[in-house]
């Protein structure tokens, strides 16, 4: 599955629904689907709102590869990139009441592998279907 969608957060749910349907069709465990659901929507939301800064003229590129063992998801925005290593830790006591960084934190904890390319514009996430988190 490959798509380029305009920067509209309402489309986020539409694309997400297609991904979940494909995972269910594959017979993936619902707990695993939940993790992928959160990880994918957080990445897409970050790309649209933080990467593309909600600019309706910009697009987000999405690509998914699925086999019997895993799904690999690529999400790339057209923004200025970001330093993923320089985000505040949202779980520190002083940050619990603040909003920033929770989406990226969830992605890191729910997906099995996460890496960034192209100056932080592109996130690549892997989730395995049949193994405990490493």
């Amino acid at each position, binding site marked *: 599955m490959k798509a380029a969608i305009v920067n509209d957060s309402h489309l986020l*749910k539409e694309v997400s629904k297609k991904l979940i349907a494909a995972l269910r069709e594959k017979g993936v465990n619902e707990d695993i689907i939940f993790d992928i659901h959160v990880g994918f929507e*957080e990445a897409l939301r970050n790309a649209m709102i933080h990467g593309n800064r909600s600019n309706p003229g910009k697009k987000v590129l999405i690509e998914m590869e699925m086999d019997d063992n895993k799904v690999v998801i690529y999400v790339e925005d057209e923004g200025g990139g970001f330093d993923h290593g320089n985000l505040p830790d949202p779980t520190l006591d002083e940050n619990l009441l603040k909003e920033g960084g929770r989406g990226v934190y*969830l992605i890191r904890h729910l997906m099995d592998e996460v890496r960034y390319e192209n100056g932080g514009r592109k996130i690549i996430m892997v989730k395995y279907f049949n193994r405990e988190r490493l």
Partner: protein
Amino acid sequence: MRIKQNEVNGISVYRVNGDIDIKTSPEVKKSFDDDIKLKQEKIVVNLKDVGYVDSSGLATLVEILKNMRAYGGRLKLTNLSAKVKGLFEITKLDKLFDIFGEEDEALASF
């Protein structure tokens, strides 16, 4: 997304049905506005029928909690599914919120 609100012994109880995410968060926040304006001191939010929460949903619940704390109000969450509760644990928000297994326990805890 449906939110039903009623009062039990002076405690405002919200039962949320549906996802709390980027799409529904504004509606969820708005549904608490009247209670916040009236400085309702005791609120219970039953999440039994919430199957999915994202970071904007978590942020919305944190904002409601912050608004209530500003006037000394207390917010309790109940009936979280294992997966939704897991999100609170991963983000350490379980340290911020009072979370109960059942609505009755939350009501009795005030």
